[in-house]
């Protein structure tokens, strides 16, 4: 509110109630207005790319599943596609459809989750609880199909590990009907509520030009009028069969894209409907047959051990394009995996979105790209005898015991 020309620094993060994961923003603030943004990553590095070099092809799938709890289909999917591309493995048709169904159910639950988080960021807790309430249905459905709420362990190289049994079709259809019924009501709450519009319209604008230059992906790009969607541009699995699939855009409901937070919300709402319809399509057109090329892990690893080459696997995760680049070098496991999560691409766009925004807009803008910091951060190093960085398990345990003692001592004194 002050009219002073001088600015002051404001750090938000690494831990802050607005962020579900650690990231640090350093803002230069003039009154309530942000004039400069800088960010710092790396607080959740787990060295996954490094660890992946030590494991065999099958172990890596489950390691990559743990890059992110929300896109736990997307990362293994991109990895499997990359390895299949490199080794020339053909996936059976039924497996392609099962992969698509699981992927779209994941997109549905991820978008519902995002809606809840965004609502909480703007202080609308009722909407947050409502969307998380209806999200339970798809989570139950995923648990039924795969055995887990997250980390489904469903994919493997050359297919899927579990089939969708005929008795599950009815339950899946029921779930789809549940969301079809709820769609209009949810859309009304999200897109027609006045306070939501007041907080999201013309906030955090990313123009078309910036979206292209900064390589934005996923709903963030689509809200800026850049119709980029790997499912359509470079389709895999069952997506090539779906003729009507188009990138979601605010134009679908008669609004010109402005690239603001509200447009990102529109795109995600439309994509929820899209996901439901895609799952419906896959159920109607499900081919019969095998679900995996080679179900024996040892045999598969031996087969992959003979391959020398590299492959790029791309998949549209709920948040945008996931790309894995795998190098196979006649080993038991991949020689190198490079992982790109959607947040990695979209984070660069943050700086543009924040400029000119108010402090009150920080949480919703940060949330608007649906950030998954853990996805973007994947690397750090633990090496013996390397400065202050290395700790063995015993040392860490000792340190934590000491800290607890210290806390107990100080609390007792006061």
């Amino acid at each position: 509110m002050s009219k002073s020309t001088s600015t002051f620094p404001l750090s938000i993060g690494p831990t802050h109630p607005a962020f579900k994961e650690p990231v640090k923003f350093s803002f230069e603030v003039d009154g309530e207005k942000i004039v400069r943004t800088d960010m710092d990553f790396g607080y959740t590095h787990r060295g996954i790319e490094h660890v992946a070099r030590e494991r065999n092809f099958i172990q890596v799938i489950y390691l990559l599943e743990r890059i992110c709890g929300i896109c736990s289909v997307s990362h293994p999917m991109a990895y499997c596609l990359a390895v299949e591309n490199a080794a020339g493995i053909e996936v059976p048709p039924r497996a392609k459809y099962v992969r698509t169904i699981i992927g779209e159910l994941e997109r549905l639950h991820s978008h519902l989750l995002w809606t809840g988080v965004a609502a909480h960021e703007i202080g609308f807790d009722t909407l947050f609880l409502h969307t998380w309430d209806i999200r339970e249905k798809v989570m139950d459905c995923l648990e039924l199909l795969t055995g887990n709420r997250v980390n489904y362990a469903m994919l493997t190289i050359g297919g899927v590990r579990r089939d969708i049994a005929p008795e599950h079709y009815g339950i899946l259809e029921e779930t789809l009907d549940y969301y079809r019924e709820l769609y209009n009501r949810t859309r009304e709450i999200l897109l027609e509520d006045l306070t939501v519009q007041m907080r999201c319209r013309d906030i955090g604008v990313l123009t078309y030009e910036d979206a292209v230059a900064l390589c934005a992906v996923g709903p963030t790009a689509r809200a800026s009028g850049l119709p980029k969607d790997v499912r359509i541009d470079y389709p895999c699995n069952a997506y090539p069969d779906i003729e009507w699939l188009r990138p979601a855009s605010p134009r679908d409901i008669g609004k010109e894209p402005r690239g603001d937070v509200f447009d990102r919300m529109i795109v995600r709402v439309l994509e929820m409907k899209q996901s439901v319809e895609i799952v419906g399509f896959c159920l109607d057109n499900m081919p019969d047959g095998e679900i995996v090329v080679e179900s024996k892990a040892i045999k598969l690893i031996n087969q992959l051990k003979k391959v020398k080459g590299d492959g790029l696997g791309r998949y549209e995760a709920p948040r945008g394009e996931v790309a894995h680049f795998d190098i196979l070098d006649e080993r038991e496991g991949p020689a190198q995996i490079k992982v790109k999560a959607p947040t990695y691409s979209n984070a660069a766009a943050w700086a543009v979105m924040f400029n000119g925004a108010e402090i009150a807009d920080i949480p919703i803008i940060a949330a608007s790209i649906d950030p998954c910091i853990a996805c973007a951060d994947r690397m750090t190093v633990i090496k013996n005898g390397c400065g202050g960085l290395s700790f063995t398990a015993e040392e860490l345990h000792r340190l934590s015991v000491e800290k607890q003692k210290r806390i107990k001592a100080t609390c007792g004194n006061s």
Partner: protein
Amino acid sequence: MLPLHDILVEQFKSEFGEDLLHCEIRNRPEGVKRPRDQRSLWLTFHRRHFHMAVTFLSRFGAPHISCPMASREYEDRIDLIYPFTIYGGTGNYMELPVIITAQVPRDDLRIRTVTDIVPGILFMERETREMLGIDIEDIPDERRLFTPGNLPPEMKPMLETYRGAGRGGGR
């Protein structure tokens, strides 16, 4: 009329001639009921011509960087693999991954930045810098990206030298 990827290959060949060290189009059939080929274009350049190649690519459309640069190590050089894509957002199967490999000699680990053509690549170049120790010339932001500040500067974790370095570290 030739398909887009073939035109692209022709153009690259006539522009770069011998400097285009390797060129390959890969096909992979995808889809069940309407099968079509997923195509990708693989080009290899020496690091001298890399910036020119990306500039040339940007004439056909804004290149999008898909993935951070992977690396393949040899005795005398490190291959840096840049997975670009172009023609994104134009429809079914129109997008074309153009994977450009740049050969960087071991005794002089430098490559020119392409942030002037693809601004979105900045984070990935920063990552390459800290993980592989390849110096990116003229990079607008010289700070580290992911690794902690107290990492010894000579340590470049994604180099082959450090394969297995994490083993037993936590046990």
